[in-house]
């Protein structure tokens, strides 16, 4: 048996894209001295093959004859060049290309190959020290969570995982019965169970009543089932809530409010009370389902994958999108994914390297890795990524947020599942390995600088092609009625999937039957592994052969590993030995009810006090260049946003296909005129001042984007995704409660139900025992059914001579605005939502658009009117002239006291406030002159103003309240200011 090394590199004179990219990143890092980087891919091929066969493999398979060359050596060989860095995957980490290379070799009729591992080789040219080479490797070339530098002389050959000794069964029990409280805490901590003392005591009592200690497997199962990640203890528990607000300079403490189950009393309550007939399945399944047409429904789910992305951005985001795609697949009897969304929050991309806390990756590296991870998985799955947002703030430095969403289409008679007694448990897809152990519990704790070592097993790499094969096969199996229920293996692996499916009936599993990636896994590891790309089916016995044959015909592994029993117990065996036997009732309902304290103290930020500058052009440019406002084209283009052919309104629109669309419209059925609109609202800055207004504003934002593209509020559903800090800390929980209360009030007022959601807590990072939380961040995603996609409008200005309107009132609401941000302030007067008026206004505008009176519409959000006008102008390539005096501007309103404002900014009607206020429920609308009367009639009863016209040419000009120009700029300069910051090459 021999290991051959085949080195594949570009021929002389051929562009070395990877090497070139690495060099750019090195220079970005500020490192001097490296002149050039040469990249090569190494294949280590192990097996019974001769030299001639290896040559054939190299020549006919591994190289592209036109551009590449190869070199073969036996064994790893000695390294003579000091500056060669070779990066290989760690033991137990799946090599993403191994399976397909093995397949291709056997296609060639060569059968002796046993394993293929790959490694990356970088040859650095230039004058620099050994230390610099080390820094480059660590900062850029590899991530120790999944990879290592294959050092000279080490004999790891990359095939270690395969050589691991077989596992010998030994039942492990954990001594709880004799454990003191201190010991219980220790057991929880050492086992990474993340269970608190009262939970540990409950488990101890249960096993006391059984007269025995739990096995490791039982304890793990309970910990995972009871984890915050799976159980949503915070949202479903009991909360004591108080508010401390300031009124006329005095602190007012509200009385204590007891909330039993925050989820049921806010988010789910909206849906229940609205009771929409088109809500098909809500809060029950892996995704919420609404009606699409007479034959099909649509489902939608958004998840987060924050902790893994902090440690391994590519793998974390990769498996994040892979995981959320399995949600529609596991909804009802399986939905076909129709689009993905993604929203990211990162630290500032220009954060100084030297100031990074220990163990924290640089935000730019995180951002690039996350984008690459989403791109890789989404594109390879053939699902268009059509909508999203990217935000940067120092608060996300150690805890990036990665929200991934997937919607699917499902025949209406396939929306429900039922497990019957006697159904077989079949696991399909990828094999089980040691990857992703403890993911569910890991995400239920805070990150520290040790997380990358302690929890490295929690980070996984995805294999999108395996998941694509599952999708292709599953849709056929579904339509042939070959199974009765399905769910995905997500956090908690088989434990979670089978535990959930078997809740009513009970389940028996023979763990040794699960197909493994390599030997050596214990029964407990098999049970809790979170290896990716696996689904669990409940298959009627008589369908067994058909189902297995179908999966085999598409080269997807499917294995019967047990049965749903009817005993109402979870019974696990390994080679005939019982390793778990607990009641489903205890597993699912045994969790002790906990009470958490929550308090929200209204913060007080410095109120700026300055005169309004006469010329605001530079202020506008600064806001356009803010990372959070700037064009995200660099990211968007790397996603295939048009695969499946149903893209009606793309994320980039306008005369040069580069303006920021408000929402995306997708046709899930190409032959139908119906479409689905997707949008999102997120604004953590408002939450710094008041989480209530953040939540209300986010809902308003998501809805107004739907209206802006020509949708209506008739059939819209919302998803909530709360990313917060540690909910055991009363201040963190207090702001969460306040945001959830707003979700109820606002969504109810709009008449828009929530259909699903998810929370992610413990987004905190501790250094030296001091813990820092992310800003509480709520993402609202909205999905709407559109009857006729030909009514869609885009935000780009269309024609010279058209009229420009603003719809909605503007208030001096600059708190949390980007105008204040660029001046170094936060402020206090945060935008609010008058739901009743907002709804009337959106309904009116929607009708006007539907009747064809609207040429373009864009919602006012970050940067207010000014940014909306600028974006519309440069997207359309046409100049505008507007008069701020025509903007309906209100300095006072019920409940909108401005008494807290600074002296000069008090009650002021000022050009800067009119231009940059981020008041909600506003749109800029372009109307053809000949439609003026009809449009204005349609908008009767709603606040609007005719503020200007499309002047053509290249200028954006705004006349201030005094009639003098306050903004005058070339729209292409504005566009450059907007495009430059995130043009990452």
């Amino acid at each position: 048996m021999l290991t051959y090394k085949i080195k594949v590199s570009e021929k002389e004179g051929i562009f070395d894209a990877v090497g070139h990219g690495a060099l750019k990143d090195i220079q970005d890092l500020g490192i001097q001295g490296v002149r050039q980087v040469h990249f090569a891919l190494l294949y280590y091929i192990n097996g019974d093959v001769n030299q001639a066969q290896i040559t054939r493999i190299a020549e006919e398979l591994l190289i592209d004859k036109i551009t590449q060359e190869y070199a073969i050596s036996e064994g790893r060989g000695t390294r003579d060049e000091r500056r060669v860095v070779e990066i290989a995957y760690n033991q137990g980490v799946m090599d993403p290309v191994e399976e397909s290379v093995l397949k291709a070799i056997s296609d060639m009729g060569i059968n002796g190959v046993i394993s293929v591992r790959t490694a990356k080789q970088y040859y650095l040219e230039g004058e620099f020290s050994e230390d610099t080479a080390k820094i480059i490797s660590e900062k850029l070339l590899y991530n120790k969570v999944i990879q290592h530098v294959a050092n000279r002389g080490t004999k790891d050959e990359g095939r270690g995982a395969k050589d691991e000794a077989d596992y010998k069964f030994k039942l492990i029990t954990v001594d709880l019965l004799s454990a003191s409280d201190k010991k219980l805490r220790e057991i929880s901590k050492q086992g990474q169970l993340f269970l608190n003392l009262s939970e540990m005591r409950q488990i101890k009592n249960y096993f006391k009543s059984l007269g025995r200690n739990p096995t490791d497997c039982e304890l793990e199962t309970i910990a995972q089932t009871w984890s915050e990640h799976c159980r949503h203890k915070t949202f479903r528990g009991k909360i004591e809530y108080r508010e401390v607000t300031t009124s006329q300079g005095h602190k007012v403490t509200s009385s204590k409010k007891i909330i039993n189950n925050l989820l049921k009393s806010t988010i789910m309550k909206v849906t229940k009370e609205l009771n929409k007939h088109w809500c098909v399945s809500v809060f029950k399944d892996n995704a919420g389902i609404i009606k699409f047409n007479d034959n099909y429904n649509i489902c939608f789910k958004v998840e987060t994958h924050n902790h893994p992305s902090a440690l391994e951005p590519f793998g974390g985001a990769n498996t994040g999108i892979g995981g959320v795609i399995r949600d529609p697949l596991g909804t009802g009897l399986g939905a076909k994914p129709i689009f993905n969304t993604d929203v990211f929050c990162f630290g500032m991309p220009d954060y100084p390297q030297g100031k990074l806390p220990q163990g924290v990756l640089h935000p730019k590296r995180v951002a690039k890795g996350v984008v690459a991870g989403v791109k890789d998985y989404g594109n390879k799955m053939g699902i268009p990524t059509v909508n999203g947002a990217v935000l940067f703030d120092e608060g996300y430095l150690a805890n990036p947020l990665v929200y991934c969403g997937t919607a699917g289409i499902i025949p209406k008679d396939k929306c429900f599942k039922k497990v019957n007694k006697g159904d077989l448990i079949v696991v399909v897809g990828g094999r089980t390995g040691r990857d992703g152990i403890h993911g569910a519990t890991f995400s239920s704790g805070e990150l520290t600088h040790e997380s990358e070592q302690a929890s490295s097993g929690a980070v996984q790499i995805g294999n999108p092609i395996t998941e694509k094969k599952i999708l292709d096969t599953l849709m056929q199996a579904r339509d042939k009625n070959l199974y009765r229920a399905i769910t995905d293996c997500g956090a908690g692996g088989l434990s979670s999937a089978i535990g959930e499916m078997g809740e009513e009936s009970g389940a028996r599993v023979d763990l040794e039957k699960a197909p493994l990636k390599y030997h050596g896994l214990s029964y407990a590891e098999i049970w809790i592994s979170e290896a990716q790309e696996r689904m669990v089916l409940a298959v009627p016995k008589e369908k067994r052969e058909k189902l297995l044959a179908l999966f085999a015909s598409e080269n997807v592994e499917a294995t019967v590993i047990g049965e749903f029993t009817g005993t109402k117990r979870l019974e696990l065996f390994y080679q005939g030995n019982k390793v778990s036997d607990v009641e489903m009732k205890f597993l699912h309902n045994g969790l002790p009810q906990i009470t958490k304290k929550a308090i929200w103290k209204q913060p007080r930020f410095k109120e700026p006090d300055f005169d309004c500058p006469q010329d605001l052009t530079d202020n506008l440019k600064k806001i356009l260049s803010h990372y959070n406002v700037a064009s995200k084209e660099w990211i968007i283009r790397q996603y295939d946003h048009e695969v499946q052919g149903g893209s009606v309104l793309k994320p980039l629109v306008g005369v040069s296909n580069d303006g920021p669309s408000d929402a995306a419209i997708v046709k899930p059925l190409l032959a139908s005129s119906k479409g689905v609109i997707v949008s999102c609202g997120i604004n953590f800055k408002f939450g710094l001042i008041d989480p209530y207004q953040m939540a209300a504003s986010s809902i308003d934002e998501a809805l107004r984007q739907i209206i802006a593209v020509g949708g209506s509020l008739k059939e819209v559903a919302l998803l909530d995704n709360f990313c917060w800090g540690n909910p055991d800390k009363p201040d963190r929980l207090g702001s969460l409660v306040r945001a959830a209360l707003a979700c109820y009030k606002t969504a109810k007022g709009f008449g828009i139900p929530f259909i699903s959601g998810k929370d992610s807590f413990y987004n905190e990072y501790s250094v030296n025992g001091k813990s820092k939380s992310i800003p509480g961040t709520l993402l609202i995603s909205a999905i709407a059914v559109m009857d006729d996609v030909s009514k869609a409008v885009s935000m780009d200005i269309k024609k010279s001579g058209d009229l420009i309107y603003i719809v909605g009132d503007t208030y001096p609401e600059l708190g949390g605005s980007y105008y204040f941000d660029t001046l170094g302030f936060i402020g206090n007067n945060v935008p609010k939502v008058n739901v009743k008026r907002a709804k009337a206004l959106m309904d009116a505008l929607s009708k006007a658009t539907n009747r064809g009176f609207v040429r373009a519409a864009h919602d006012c959000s970050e940067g207010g009117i000014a940014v909306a006008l600028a974006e519309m102008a440069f997207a359309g390539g046409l100049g505008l002239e507007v008069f701020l005096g025509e903007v309906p501007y209100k300095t006072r309103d019920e409940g909108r006291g401005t008494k807290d404002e600074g002296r000069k900014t008090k009650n002021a009607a000022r050009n800067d406030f009119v231009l940059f206020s981020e008041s909600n429920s506003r749109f800029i609308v372009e109307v053809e002159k000949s439609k003026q009367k009809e449009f204005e009639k349609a908008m009767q009863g709603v606040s609007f103003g005719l503020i200007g016209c499309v002047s053509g040419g290249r200028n954006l000009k705004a006349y201030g309240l005094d009639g003098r120009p306050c903004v005058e700029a070339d729209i292409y300069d504005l566009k450059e200011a907007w495009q430059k910051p995130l043009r990452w090459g």
Partner: protein
Amino acid sequence: MKPRALVLRTAGTNCDKETAFAFSEAGAECAFVHINELKNKTQRLSEYHILVLSGGFSYGDDIAAGKILANELKYALGNELKAFIKSGKLIIGICNGFQILAKAGLLPGNDTLEQEVTLTINDSAKFEDRWVYVRGMRDEGRETKCVWTKGLPEVVYLPVAHGEGKFMSKDKALLQQLESNGQIVLRYCDEKGETAGYPANPNGSENDIAGICDITGRIFGLMPHPERHSFGWQHPRWTREGLRKTGDGLQIFRNGVEYAKKYL
């Protein structure tokens, strides 16, 4: 009778549905056939008129885009493919399909199925989804020999979405030969049909090559996606330029169907 198109599927194929939709709109009858079905002979290539290799990431594009499926086609179905081509039938490869045809040696095509051209990593070193203009051969003063590109407007607007689309030939002589044979049937250009650099040529292809055909004109490969502009509402600017019923790409599918109806 409707011409029968075989839309080939394997792990990672993903533009099959919309490509079949466009073909059906153009009048073909499409069947989705997994490569295993051809290998185990439950399906026979010879019973179809058109072989369609759609876009996607066959086998994850591991090793290089399209390489593993190209390898599989060559070794497992080489003879069937040769017979299919010999009998005068049609093949179209879009995006990943073009990469497969090139790497299997079916384009530009020779008897030994030796690879002579490639589609390699974009000069921008990244995957990009963007709309491009491509022009046919009309401006060169000659009628195209390619079955698939007849009657196209002078400049055609289609999206590309790939990371490995840079066309390269093994040498200058071959490139010259392709030029003089009239096998280069689509070239990236600007909206006026003029040669322009990046991003008009989105990947750095030699001679702005976006699509080529074999010597017979019946095997056609292109990087842009005609199925993504077969209908007016797929156009990125229909909201400003007006909604047309069909898109530029549909003609390509119609050409295939018409040819099959007439000659096969």
